[in-house]
């Protein structure tokens, strides 16, 4: 009886205590989260929001829907097999007249022209020649007379496809694909199929730069990790100083060095290795040299820290167990640097994929990477849908590689590899 009372009393005092402690812990966590929240909100506004907006633009299709609303509505029920009925023609004529009055024809014309070359002319000529709303029942005939393109099914399919509100058109175009009149996904016509080449070029330049960085970076990282701290700290300046120098300064310097009357060509001429200046800049060579220079520290630093973490005792142990130096290096040292090699290479590759400034300044027309075209379509031609679609593809590649990188670096931290 007494026992029961005691435990009862205990239980009634302990349960609120437990809840109180939990509540205190939750409050603490909430306070901690509240400190992170301003940054999260800020990044939502200045980073995540804008990128989400860009992704939305890659699938959004508003122009035709806004300029030719009645036509889009009339085509909704069209099966696309034959020409649309009189109702659709009448809607189009009415839309065109309204758009001409509002001055918005060009917006739709630009969008439709992306999908079907020459559509701009079709629409503007129709707008110019359509005097008034056609009599009921004569819209088809009137429009057909103004421009025979209105008697073709493809013209109408193009309008229907561009009717929005969302479209795969830009994303397909970014991959050199399009939809034919029957709606099937087919290869884009050769004059528009340029993006796969550009992605491939971006990939190859990035890969080349990564390999160059690895070849040049490995011995340097090894040297820095092996030398006594005094010497290696001094030599580290040669890595860190370029690392901290402005990208523009370095790019500018490479132009000075590599131009036809530049230091490199002058030296080679003076030494008699060549008779005429070599073309070292505004081509693939210049891009690779300048990008390797910019990205090399990103390879050396992770390699260095992974090598620094390898105890010399391993190599001594290998030697004492009878391994010759080369065998010990290949079988004991090298495998332990693999995480560093992986991290450095991925980092360099990810950064190289998005490069814009360096190729834009030291590359020729055939050396521009995907970022250049994204910028071009955004600011010059204002084909924002395509710019966004190319951006979406680049972003996807970057995010996937960054996830792999994150896993790699995380694993390394467990084994004590990356110690910054």
């Amino acid at each position, binding site marked *: 009886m007494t026992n029961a009372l005691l435990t009862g009393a205990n239980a009634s005092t*302990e349960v609120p*205590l437990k809840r109180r*402690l939990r509540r205190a812990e939750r409050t603490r966590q909430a306070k901690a989260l509240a400190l992170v929240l301003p940054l999260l909100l800020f990044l939502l506004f200045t980073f995540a929001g804008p990128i989400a907006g860009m992704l939305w633009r890659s699938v959004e299709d508003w122009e035709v829907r806004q300029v030719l609303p009645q036509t889009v509505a009339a085509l909704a029920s069209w099966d696309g097999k034959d020409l649309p009925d009189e109702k659709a023609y009448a809607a189009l004529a009415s839309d065109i007249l309204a758009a001409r009055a509002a001055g918005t024809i060009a917006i739709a014309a630009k969008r439709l022209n992306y999908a079907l070359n020459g559509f701009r002319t079709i629409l503007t000529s129709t707008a110019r020649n359509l005097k008034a709303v056609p009599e009921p029942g004569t819209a088809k005939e009137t429009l057909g007379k103004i421009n025979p393109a209105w008697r073709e099914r493809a013209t109408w399919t193009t309008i229907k496809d561009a009717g929005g509100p969302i479209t795969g058109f830009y994303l397909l175009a970014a991959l050199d694909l399009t939809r034919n009149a029957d709606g099937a996904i087919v290869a884009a016509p050769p004059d528009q199929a340029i993006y796969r080449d550009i992605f491939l070029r971006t990939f190859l330049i990035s890969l080349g730069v990564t390999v160059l960085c690895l070849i040049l970076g490995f011995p340097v990282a090894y040297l820095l990790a092996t030398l006594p701290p005094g010497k290696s700290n001094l030599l580290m300046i040669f890595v860190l100083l370029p690392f901290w120098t402005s990208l523009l300064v370095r790019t500018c310097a490479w132009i000075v060095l590599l131009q036809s009357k530049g230091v490199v060509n002058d030296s080679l001429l003076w030494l008699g290795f060549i008779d005429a200046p070599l073309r070292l800049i505004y081509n693939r060579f210049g891009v690779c040299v300048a990008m390797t220079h910019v990205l090399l520290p990103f390879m050396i630093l992770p390699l260095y820290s992974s090598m620094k973490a390898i105890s010399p005792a391993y190599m001594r142990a290998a030697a004492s167990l009878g391994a010759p130096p080369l065998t010990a290096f290949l079988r004991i040292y090298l495998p332990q640097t693999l995480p560093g090699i992986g991290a450095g290479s991925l980092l360099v590759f990810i950064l190289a994929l998005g490069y814009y400034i360096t190729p834009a300044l030291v590359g020729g027309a055939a050396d521009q990477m995907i970022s250049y075209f994204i910028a071009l379509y955004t600011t010059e031609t204002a084909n924002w849908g395509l710019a966004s679609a190319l951006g979406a593809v680049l972003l996807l590649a970057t995010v996937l590689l960054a996830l792999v990188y994150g896993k790699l670096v995380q694993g390394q931290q467990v084994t004590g590899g990356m110690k910054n």
Partner: protein
Amino acid sequence: MEAGTVMPAPALVRFSGIQKTYDGEHLVVKNLDLDIRKGEFITLLGPSGSGKTTTLMMLAGFEVPTHGEIYLSERPIKNVPPHRRDIGMVFQNYALFPHLTIAENIAFPLSVRKSSKAETQERVSAALRMIKMESLAHRRPGQLSGGQQQRVALARALVFNPQLVLMDEPLGALDKRLREQMQLEIKQLHETMGITIVYVTHDQSEALTMSDRIAVFNDGIVQQIDRPDALYEHPVNSFVAHFIGENNVLAGTVETVERDYCRVALAGGGTVAARAINVSGAGASTSLSVRPERVAIVPNGSSGEGPNRLPARVQNTIYLGDHALAVLDVADNAEFMVKLQPGAHHSLKPGESVFITFRPEDCLALDPV
């Protein structure tokens, strides 16, 4: 030197009904009542997770008791923040401020109390003299050895004459020789300065060397508080017997109890007489505790019937310099240790059958483990 052991001084610190839980389910400290007298060196001893460090942290003010109250000089301090408690503390890894010099570290408690420049300087140099480190006053902690850092931490905790000094495993990071030297130095400081020290350690030999009294913690409960010799000679339960000093355990069942003594039938055969310390009565199971130095080995066949005479088989012998140990197989215990005079181990051969004998007053019947 105050004779704290003769006349009980008034309690400087009183823990009253202290409970502590972090999750509301599991009590780290269960109902702690403990008085610490002025001028005494008390050690909280126990394995990790026993609640000793939590107790110290509650006294320092870095943890708040869930229930109960702590009194310092008879004033409740549960709601007094650490910096107003006037308690000096030496931390496990010293916690010297790396950006301040040794002198600045020692001056810190004085300067936050707005002592005058002259007084600060005088007391800092006195403290540096005390730890014999005048010449290193302008070094930084990173430039000192572990033992030197330890001394600075000590000087810093003492320089403002706190009512009480807490030490949280202060010697844990030092090597054995240095640790023993520092034990003596701390003990000396305690005796010359007459300060009250609450010391936390998991090292029983350290506790035995330094303390006036030891509180043995296990599982959130103080198992026993007593002078070191009393803990060793009169442990109240198996945990204390096992935790303090070397100890042989024999399992058995109580047959009869007669005043302070009882007869115990060993699980491995045979019966012995033991002091009944912590047994409930006849028929209860018990653990017998016998110290290795209280056991004698009698060669096989020799005469003499002791009250506690058990057959044993020699496993091996271990030479330890100042003494030697014989490892025997006794009853159900295959690692029964007996302390020998150095040299005596030569006469024992592994596999040899012998008898052991010990006095009933050296064999304690305690709670079963």
